[in-house]
């Protein structure tokens, strides 16, 4: 069983990506469990997933990397026991630190074969995010196994290269890929990188 954690800021397209990855695994005939976390007391992502035909375990009202850490561990254990999936995809809130989630997966003793962090950066608001919350963004991406530059379908000329250069400079060892979860551009390349 492999666990994927989608890390990235609010509105970076994690839920859309989650749906695409889940569909890909379903097409491959693998049993996939989805865990979505939202900071607010009201969870909307679960409803979005349901509206699009996916079932997910919702963990609202807090952050699974800190305030809901125990809830996450309990949920993972239940998933392992009740569903025993081939893949678990975890989408923390956009205000979570994915490496903390990875640590929690490790100590949950769910006997996983590997846990990976997919960092998601958003073309559209990259500049604003770096301007306002550079440190936080860096913390989110710091332990990512690979980084995706999402929403390239709405990128302005030169924007992808600019962001890519910035990420390469910060994280020279991490693979970077420009994708559009919405239009599915380059998602096949992402799927090749996944287990």
């Amino acid at each position, binding site marked *: 069983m492999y666990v994927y954690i989608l890390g990235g800021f*609010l509105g970076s397209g994690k839920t859309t990506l989650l749906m695409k990855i889940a569909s890909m695994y379903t097409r491959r005939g693998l049993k996939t469990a989805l865990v979505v976390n939202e900071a*607010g007391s009201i969870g909307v992502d679960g409803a979005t997933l349901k509206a699009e035909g996916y079932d997910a375990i919702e963990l609202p009202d807090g952050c699974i990397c*800190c305030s809901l850490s125990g809830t996450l561990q309990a949920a993972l254990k239940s998933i392992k026991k009740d569903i025993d999936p081939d893949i678990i995809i975890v989408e923390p*809130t956009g*205000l979570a630190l994915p490496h903390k989630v990875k640590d929690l997966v490790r100590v949950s003793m769910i006997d996983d074969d590997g846990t990976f962090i997919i960092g998601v950066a958003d073309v559209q608001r990259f500049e*604003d995010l770096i301007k306002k*919350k550079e440190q*936080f963004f860096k*913390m989110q991406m710091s332990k990512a196994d690979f980084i995706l530059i999402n929403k390239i379908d709405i990128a302005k000329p030169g924007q992808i290269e600019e962001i890519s250069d910035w990420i390469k400079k910060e994280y020279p060892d991490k693979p970077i890929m420009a994708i559009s979860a919405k239009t599915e551009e380059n998602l096949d390349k992402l799927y090749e990188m996944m287990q």
Partner: protein
Amino acid sequence: MSDEPTSMEMAGGVAVGLHGTITGFNADAEARFAKAMIQVGEWVQKETGCLLGHIKSAFLAEDGSGITLNLTDLDNGVEHHGTLEPQEKVSFDFMCAVLDVDEHELKHRMYHAVDDTGLDYELDEHVECHCHDHDHHHDHDHCSCGHDHDHHHEHHHDHDHHDHDHCSCGHDHEHEHHDDGECHCAECEANRQKAEKPKEKKSFFDKLRRKKE
């Protein structure tokens, strides 16, 4: 409990949710709610310079089917996921997770954005709001000051008026009307008297008196 700040605190993020029901849900209601989300998004953008975060809502029918609306960028507008036939009643969730704004003010803005849709809605929780001390607040059709403007939007939504330093209705007066929900400047008093006169003429006793005469 650890004293270490949560990731949300580190990011300066706030997350606020409202839950309730809407009676009479259809495409028009969906569009109105999308407008409410944009209204909140515009406020966040005005406050912080950019909308970093997301504003979401979900509408669920009794059978569990539903749609969701998602706003992450004002230029792109609200994304709609799924379809929902017109419903007599739906439950709704309205959620905002954004940065660098006051949590209570955000909730207040969200509440007013929902209220401004004109939809027949009910919230599960009471939202504390000073604006509600005003009689005319709950009824957005009229305003006791008698001015030709969107009065509830101006002096209810503008929190400056709680300082009693100034009133956005533009009159040159002390802002006493917050104590009793009415404005007592000369212009407003004159307008109120003018507005009250026709009511007297229409009273039952007046009609009776006129008949006797």
